[in-house]
């Protein structure tokens, strides 16, 4: 898909605006596959919940019909809990609105806003991976870049004192961006200068980042009064403002993420540099003949991609946790690869996919409590959805769709050699 996008967007009748391109792709049918993939993934997830429910397999030998009924019930109950945990319980919302108590209203709307809060790192991470894809680069290192970004921003967040929020927040975010950008720059530079494949290098950089974070949190960045690997709390002036009272954690980061999505869209589709980037990604040989600076594009794209991932880490630290502990990321960077692919590497698609993932992750917590379904079911669903997106032929054969005239089977096919 990264390959055929430029001609799709540039050569044919050109939809000009943000959503125009997106709707264009939707009606062309290329978004039908992701939507069907998501639905199929959710159905299979429900099936999986059903077959792993204890009552289902214990009653199966006596009465298969009853077992199927129980399975449906279990899946329904789980998804109801998922919905209540991620969007909100409709009855509770109505009661709260009728009651008029501010605290109750906030609690009732909290699940939905918490889902948006959870989607912030996914948006940044997804944009990071998507930007790499557009330049023909596979940035598996978003996770490591998130760690480094979180580390640099938490340092600026707690160590710099006496600044007003209006300066401190941009400074801490900028530090996160730079930290991630450095972690992206190294594999980008190695790719451009030595041809070392960015997939291997970013995998290696991930583990270097994990170990470095462990070391820093036990050494220079450790909170003085503890022996746990955790950083000090950031200054109040570095905290991203939250818009509502507790328990709502919805913060400025979501708006920044949407702005970042628009910025990436603008950069990719409205600037000459973005055109260069997409050309290098789609056809490096053509780009070389056209006199584009492939080295510069590769290094800049990887740095920018790393910077965006770094912002994901910075937002978690500055907006949600206000401190840094090793387990702060629940695999944001790895999930970002999946959602960049699901979002077809388009900023709008990435934002939608990120909100979906944030919602699922948030709802899964409630699902774990209410229906005893471990939260890891979401990873299983993600893998299934991603498999269907990556191999659209599976979805086409399930739903008996016709193959498109223009082949878009090859999701980003390349070898190690680069």
């Amino acid at each position, binding site marked *: 898909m990264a390959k055929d996008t430029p001609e799709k967007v540039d050569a044919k009748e050109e939809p000009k605006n943000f959503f125009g391109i997106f709707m264009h792709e939707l009606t062309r049918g290329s978004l039908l596959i992701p939507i069907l993939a998501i639905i199929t993934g959710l159905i299979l997830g429900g099936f999986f919940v059903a077959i792993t429910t204890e009552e289902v397999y214990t009653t199966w030998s006596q009465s298969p019909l009853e077992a199927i009924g129980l399975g449906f019930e279990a899946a329904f109950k789980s998804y109801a809990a998922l919905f209540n945990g991620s969007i909100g319980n409709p009855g509770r919302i109505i009661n709260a609105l009728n009651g008029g108590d501010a605290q109750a209203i906030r609690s009732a709307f909290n699940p939905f806003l918490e889902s948006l809060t959870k989607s912030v790192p996914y948006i940044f991470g997804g944009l990071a991976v998507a930007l790499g894809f557009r330049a023909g680069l596979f940035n598996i290192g978003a996770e490591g870049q998130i760690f480094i970004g979180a580390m640099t921003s938490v340092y600026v967040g707690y160590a710099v004192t006496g600044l007003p929020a209006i300066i401190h927040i941009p400074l801490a975010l900028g530090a996160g961006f730079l930290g991630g950008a450095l972690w992206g720059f190294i594999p980008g530079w190695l790719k451009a200068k*030595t041809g070392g494949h960015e997939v*291997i290098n970013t995998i*290696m950089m991930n583990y270097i980042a994990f170990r470095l974070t462990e070391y820093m949190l036990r050494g220079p960045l450790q909170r003085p009064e503890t022996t746990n690997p955790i950083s000090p709390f950031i200054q109040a002036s570095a905290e991203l403002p939250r818009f509502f009272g507790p328990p709502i954690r919805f913060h400025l980061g979501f708006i920044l993420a949407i702005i970042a999505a628009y910025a990436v869209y603008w950069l990719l589709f409205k600037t000459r540099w973005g055109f260069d980037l997409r050309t290098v990604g789609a056809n490096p040989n053509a780009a070389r003949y056209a006199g584009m600076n492939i080295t510069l594009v590769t290094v800049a794209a990887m740095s920018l991609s790393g910077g965006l991932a770094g912002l994901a880490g910075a937002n978690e630290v500055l907006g949600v946790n206000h401190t840094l502990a090793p387990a702060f990321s629940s695999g944001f960077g790895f999930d970002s690869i999946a959602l960049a692919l699901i979002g077809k590497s388009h900023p709008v698609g990435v934002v939608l996919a990120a909100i979906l993932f944030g919602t699922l992750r948030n709802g899964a917590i409630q699902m774990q409590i209410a229906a005893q379904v471990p939260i*890891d079911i979401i*990873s*299983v669903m993600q893998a299934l959805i991603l498999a269907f997106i990556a191999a659209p032929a599976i979805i086409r054969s399930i739903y008996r769709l016709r193959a498109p005239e223009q082949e878009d089977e090859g999701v980003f096919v390349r070898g190690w050699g680069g």
Partner: protein
Amino acid sequence: MATTTTTLQSAAEYGSDRRRRVMGIVFLALAAGIWLLFARTTAPGMETTFNLNPGGSQSSFPDWVFDTLTLLNVLAGFAAVLGAYQLFRGFGKRTNLILGLVAGLFLFGFLSWVASGTSLNLAGLLRATLIRAVPITLGALSGVLCERAGVVNIAIEGMMLMAAMVAAIFGSVAGLGVGLVAGVLSGGLLAWIHALLSIKYKTDQIVSGTVINIFAVGITSFIAAKFLASYRHLNNPGIYPDISIPGLVDIPFIGPIFFQHNIFFFGMVIFLALLHFGLFYTRWGLRLRSVGEHPKAADTLGINVFRTRYMAVILGGMMAGFGGAYFTLGSVGRFDEVMTAGRGFIGLAAMIFGNWKPVGSFGAGLLFGFADMLAARLAILGVRIPSEFLLMAPYIATMIILAGVVGRGQMPAADGQPYEKEDSH
């Protein structure tokens, strides 16, 4: 020993002056490292004691005591001589071997320095290194099988994790043997999915590998949280006992280090030998490699590219499954969430480090296993190097290798590229 292309490439590679000089400088830098870091910080007259009997072994072999400074100076001098020879004349095709030797001198110097004034169980360290190298090497061999046939496999980690869990469950229910077989088969099953996605559906192989990694983490954590936490008896397979090779195990020093291990170690040695012989000295291996180097030519000669790739990937997955089963049946005796902790990715690194060759992969596995072992013991040894930096070393070393600083590796030419059979019309 390889195909004509590779031989030509290696001739060009080894003949290059730049590589010769860079290697020479690397050797000299290691020699200087031994002298500056270790010898200069050792007071004269200090003695190092190496205990040569691993813990728990019956054989008794006298301790090896020597003057630390003398040994370090000898090591530094020897490494410097090798470096100088490499710089001016070059070791030609044996350069990599000498690199290994110099690295070994450096590590030996490091251990002597650590143990100066005290004693260190050298045999125990070596034995632990070998044990730690087992899963890494098996992961690397899995990668070698897949990538020599032209399929990139970054899902080794996921396959290992899956196999570790499946082996633990089946091992608890039906015994160790069944657990091992089930683990190996589960690795093969995930590999079959990888093969299906990347060969039949021509999905990008890295995407497909990512799918399997996410899936494996998700499903193993799900089952661990849902079932293994409440049904403890499903997660108690026990571990394979050590086997002593009669006769050989009685050799002093060597015996307990090499000839008293569980079946995973001996399995690794056997697979290593089989794969090395199979890949480079049999028709099977020639075909497999030709599919990875030039699938179109292989197809023209009547080799079934798809079938060969399926076979290689599934065998690779089974190898990773064997390596994964090691975690539960060979080491811990229990499945824990994400217990492979990146060993599969270190295996991938070891494969690259070992230049897509089985024996090279084992060498890299030993080196990375040594770093792994040392990191776990640094605190005990009283060395004030943060263990995190040692754990980073394999990754940094791989990036340096990949950057071609000490000579570029020779990956299979068609690695990662799906093969599209052309229609005959």
